[in-house]
């Protein structure tokens, strides 16, 4: 299998008045073609920024300050704005959290889906004049309309020819999110980034949306990056998962292994904080402490002040390297680094007493 997406030491920082927020700090990960990847973490851990970085949509004061994003082997960070514009929507799409505000209130659903089609499938599509021209060219307009209706039918909206002319406020939340998915997938992109696509929807709709995404993803052969704080949703759709904390990747694993034997202490703590069926009477364990201040994060491993397995004198000195402890499972934690390697790194000897 070839790599669809590779991130190499990606750094996206926000330059605020108070200081630099390292929202994504030296993140590296691989994604194979046809594979779905989940990105999980608490709010503010940088998972949304990571998603936006892949499309180069991070807004000022944020900026990608270093690293590479290889998409099909080409570095996205080096692309010109015009090349980037052609990638967006056509080869990489994104769905945002809130479908209500992600649809322009003054245009009909059909117009908006049609726009995403005509932006990439017809030459020139861009300015107002092209758009007006497109409107007056009846044959093309009808062609787009038919495609829009096909798409609406595909996402399970009945009476497509009528609903096409509805405005976003006339759609329910679930239907709006489906329309967003339809827009995102209308050009059959290679990669779909779904940023908390079900957060604002109720549980039954959530299941429908996930089913729809699964179905369309298979049909269009699109890989999905699902960003969510909900591990349950990620396990529904994805095979691989990344756990993020304060801008760093803590653990990269496949879903099954992650749930059966979490490697990183943070993952472990995270799983203990989720209620599960069949574990009656067991108390949920909250993670002590708070998410660190992103402007002055703790030295060393950013999780160490809250970690139950921390080794004083090591974890608070240098951020841990990422090591592959089993094939396909990578962890950033000193727990899995032997004494000998630690001493090679110059960490062990000085702290001998404590470690022993």
């Amino acid at each position, binding site marked *: 299998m070839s790599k669809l997406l590779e991130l190499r030491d990606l750094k996206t920082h926000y330059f605020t008045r108070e200081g630099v927020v390292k929202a994504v700090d030296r993140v590296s990960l691989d994604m194979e073609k046809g594979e779905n990847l989940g990105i999980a973490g608490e709010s503010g851990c940088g998972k949304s920024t990571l998603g936006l970085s892949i*499309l180069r*949509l991070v*807004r*000022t004061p944020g900026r990608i300050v270093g690293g590479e994003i290889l998409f099909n082997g080409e570095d996205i960070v080096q692309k010109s704005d015009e090349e980037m*514009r*052609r*990638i*967006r*929507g*056509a080869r990489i*799409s*994104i769905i*945002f*959290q*809130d479908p209500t*505000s*992600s*649809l*322009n*209130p*003054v*245009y*009909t659903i059909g117009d908006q889906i049609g*726009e*995403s089609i005509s*932006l*990439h499938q017809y030459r020139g599509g*861009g*300015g*107002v004049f092209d*758009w007006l021209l497109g*409107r007056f060219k*009846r044959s093309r*307009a*009808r062609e787009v*309309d038919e495609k829009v209706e096909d798409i609406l039918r595909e996402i399970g909206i009945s009476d497509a*020819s009528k609903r096409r*002319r509805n*405005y976003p406020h006339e759609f329910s939340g679930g239907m709006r999110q489906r329309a*967003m998915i339809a*827009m995102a997938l209308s050009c059959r992109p290679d990669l779909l980034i779904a940023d908390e696509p079900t957060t604002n929807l109720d549980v039954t709709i959530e299941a429908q949306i996930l089913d729809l995404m699964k179905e369309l993803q298979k049909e269009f052969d699109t890989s999905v990056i699902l960003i969510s704080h909900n591990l349950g949703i990620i396990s529904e759709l994805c095979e691989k998962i990344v756990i993020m904390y304060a801008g760093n990747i803590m653990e990269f694993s496949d879903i099954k292994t992650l749930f059966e034997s979490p490697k990183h202490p943070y993952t472990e703590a995270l799983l203990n904080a989720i209620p599960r069926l069949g574990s009656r009477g067991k108390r949920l364990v909250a993670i002590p402490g708070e998410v660190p201040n992103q402007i002055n994060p703790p030295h060393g491993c950013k999780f160490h002040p809250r970690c139950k397995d921390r080794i004083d004198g090591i974890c608070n000195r240098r951020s841990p390297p990422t090591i592959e402890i089993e094939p396909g499972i990578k962890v950033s934690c000193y727990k899995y680094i032997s004494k000998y390697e630690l001493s090679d790194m110059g960490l062990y000897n000085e702290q001998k007493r404590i470690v022993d």
Partner: protein
Amino acid sequence: MELTKETGVKQTTILERLFSSLSGLGKLKRNKASLVSVGILLVFIILALFPNIIVPYHPETMFMVRQSPSSKHWFGTDTLGRDVFSNVIWGVRTTFYIGTACVLIELVIGFLMGGLAGYFGGWIDDLLMRITDIILALPTLIVLILAVSMFKVRSINIIILVMGLIGWPYMARVIRSQFLSIKTTPYVDAARAMGAKTQRIMFRHIMPNIILPIVVLITIHFAGYVLWEASLTFLGLGDPNSMSWGVMIMSGKNVLRTCPWISTYPGLFLFFLLIALQLLGDGLRDIFDIRV
């Protein structure tokens, strides 16, 4: 709406979309004052469109000078013997021409300055907004008088141009603030994520969403320009050949005691037009909850 032959599907037109985005206008009905002002404005618009049908005489026709109002000359005749009623009615058109042209100039400059500043931010924003501040800091009427008196020719079009070039800063500010708030909405992000170009985002995704506050400002500024023109004319800087109310008021000022009708009737029309525009602006502002 029209039906396409093949599918029988109705196509929405651009106009319909505009109307649906302005559907809040229905709430105007609840506001009595603005309802009345809409009525007055409609009358004015009809007068501006068809003055030749309504007036009894050609405005240049001479009669006996300074006749007081009678059944033959409803508003009397002026110092040159022209029928005041006919002139006042023809003046509606001039007034609308002045207001519309100035507002158009204001809109173009306002969109360029405010739109670019709001959308791009950074040093562009700083530069354009400082220019705007400089224009705002000028004493408007004095600059107007200076600028207009620099020209040898007294032409209504020069006056319009000068007024438009001085009047845009508020429009630019409002458009900038609207761009600032709309550009961060998720649907603009979504448009960018779909691969839309900058100009497309500005014109197609942001502009239709900021029409309402601009409409409010237009009604208020329209009145402002008409008043400015009348003031300039009264100060002797108007275009004596134009049929504007300012010129008429000016021409009757020396005989105000003996023949008050020459200045009073155009003055009354000016007053009603301004008050109707202001009330409509207030009503719209209440409906859309906009602070200008």
